[in-house]
């Protein structure tokens, strides 16, 4: 039996030099999937290939969520007009190093990618009313220099605490460094009570950077409307529930909540906003 290729390419985009944007399908505030889906839609990007799931995902059946069966996907899209390649994938469960290298095998071979950006959300204990910040982590001094032209929080010091593991985006950034591809991970802190929900403000913050970086000139009026609708729902909830309002006020004053209070806040937000899908 012949060895099957771990990826399938069904179109051949022509790039001399391009940039890659990566978002993972499971992410805090749905930031990764929403940002890449939004870009794909607005830029009319086309699918051109995918990584086969067999080595990287448990294929013992399918996951049913919100009444629908899901199957892991790892797809490449291209947008010739802006020299952009967009990759959206479920988080692999095994063979991470092989999977991450496959991404670069495809894009170096077919798209001559020179630059990588990952997008993602991280948990924050602040309130949703605070302006979203965009954090950037570079994998080289050169990329840090590129990022210095933008309004980003880019001077962080961090070390993974015991008991936790780095994110797959950090792993990807490290693999990019080994392959001499400049890269940056972009992170927006998401209020903890929106982590399992949607956070359109965080999506917008990320998209604003990408818009400037690649001169995309995206009309994001629809996103502003979505932010407005969510803010309105949150404001209504605060009026209806003085208890929830008091929790959010405390977060706005940089005070913390107990575990029980945090759980009550998350539950109330979930009931008010729905799961988002």
């Amino acid at each position, binding site marked *: 039996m012949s060895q099957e290729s771990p990826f399938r390419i069904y179109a051949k985009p022509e790039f001399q030099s391009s940039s890659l944007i990566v978002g993972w399908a499971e992410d805090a505030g749905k930031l990764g999937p929403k940002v890449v889906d939004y870009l794909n839609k607005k830029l009319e990007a086309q699918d051109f290939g995918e990584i086969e799931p067999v080595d990287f995902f*448990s294929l013992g059946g399918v996951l049913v969520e919100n009444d629908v069966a899901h199957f892991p996907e790892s797809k490449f899209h291209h947008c010739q007009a802006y020299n952009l390649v967009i990759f959206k994938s479920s988080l692999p*469960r*095994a063979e*991470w*190093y*092989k999977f991450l290298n496959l991404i670069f095998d495809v894009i170096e071979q077919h798209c001559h990618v020179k630059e990588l950006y990952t997008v993602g959300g991280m948990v924050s204990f602040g309130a949703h009313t605070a302006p979203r910040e965009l954090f*950037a*982590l*570079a*994998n*080289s*001094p050169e990329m*840090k220099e590129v*990022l210095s032209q933008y309004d980003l929080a*880019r*001077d*962080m*010091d*961090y*070390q*993974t605490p015991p008991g936790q*593991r*780095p994110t797959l985006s*950090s*792993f990807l*950034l*490290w693999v990019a*460094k080994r392959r001499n591809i400049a890269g940056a991970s972009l992170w927006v802190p998401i209020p903890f009570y929106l982590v399992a929900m949607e956070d359109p403000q965080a999506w917008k913050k990320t998209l604003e950077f990408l818009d400037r970086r690649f001169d995309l000139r995206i009309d994001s009026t629809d996103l502003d409307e979505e932010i407005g609708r969510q803010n309105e729902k949150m404001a209504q909830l605060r009026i209806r529930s003085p208890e929830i309002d008091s929790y959010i006020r405390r977060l706005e004053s940089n005070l913390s909540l107990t575990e029980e209070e945090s759980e009550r806040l998350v539950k109330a937000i979930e009931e008010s906003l729905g799961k988002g899908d």
Partner: protein
Amino acid sequence: MGVSLYKEPELEKPVLIAGWPGIGNVGLIAVDTLRGGLRAEEFGEIEPWDFFYPKRIVIRNGELKDLEFPSNKFYFKKTEKRDLIFFIGEEQPTEEGRAYAEGRKAYQMANLVLDVALKLGCQRAYTSGAAVAPIHHTMKPKVWAVPNTEALIDELRGYENTILMSDIEGRKGQGNITGLNGLLLGVAKKRGLEAVCIMGEIPVYLQGLPLPYPKASKSVLEVLTASLGVRIEMEGIIELVERSEREVENLYQRFPLEIREQLDKLKYVTYARPAEPGPITEEDKKRILEDIDKFFKKGPKED
């Protein structure tokens, strides 16, 4: 997927001693204590990224400085009696959330360790782990030894405080060693290298707790040093055992009285030959083990 050797030491018929984490980290503590006690020198590693998810990222001033993976390192030591190679893995390469290595990755790692050992002329390998047994924590743990060839059985019978599978009641010489501590024995056999797994006993009621059990490691260490003909300072591990005994005793006192009463009976149970006459009859013993089994719903096992 490869091995990176910083130097190739010239060794004469070295013995490999390999250790990975497992129940109570019994084997890992024993092997690492021996390595440290002999001041063995690091000479290489297995490149970790094909086997493991990274364990730590280091970011300085907004720039990715390092991504650290679980370590898998080789060490060597030339001693008066024999040359030694150590391999110490910080994690077992697991797949899909399993507790112990199995499948392709585990097989690859076992082969990589043996590639290095055989390249340096290795004549024998030891691995080490835990044997979950119906013993009380106040008792000195015995050591279970499993060779990968019949030719070693007579030698192992001469080790102090050591039993073979056939010495354990009801086992008829059979058992199972999970993870790399067991797999390496099989792969060594396939490649014509004699190997022994040395397992220190851990009380059945401690096996599921996230606690090291250095008392069993000390038993393993005593057997390993004797069989290898090496000596190390034992103060460090004795201190570790004393601290662990206090922790275990504190924990034990928090068990419900009813459970403690059952577990205390383990002090009088002898499940392995040679059995010395004790204060309880065979019938009592059977009943005690059945009672304890009811609490834990598990029989003895190894890792």
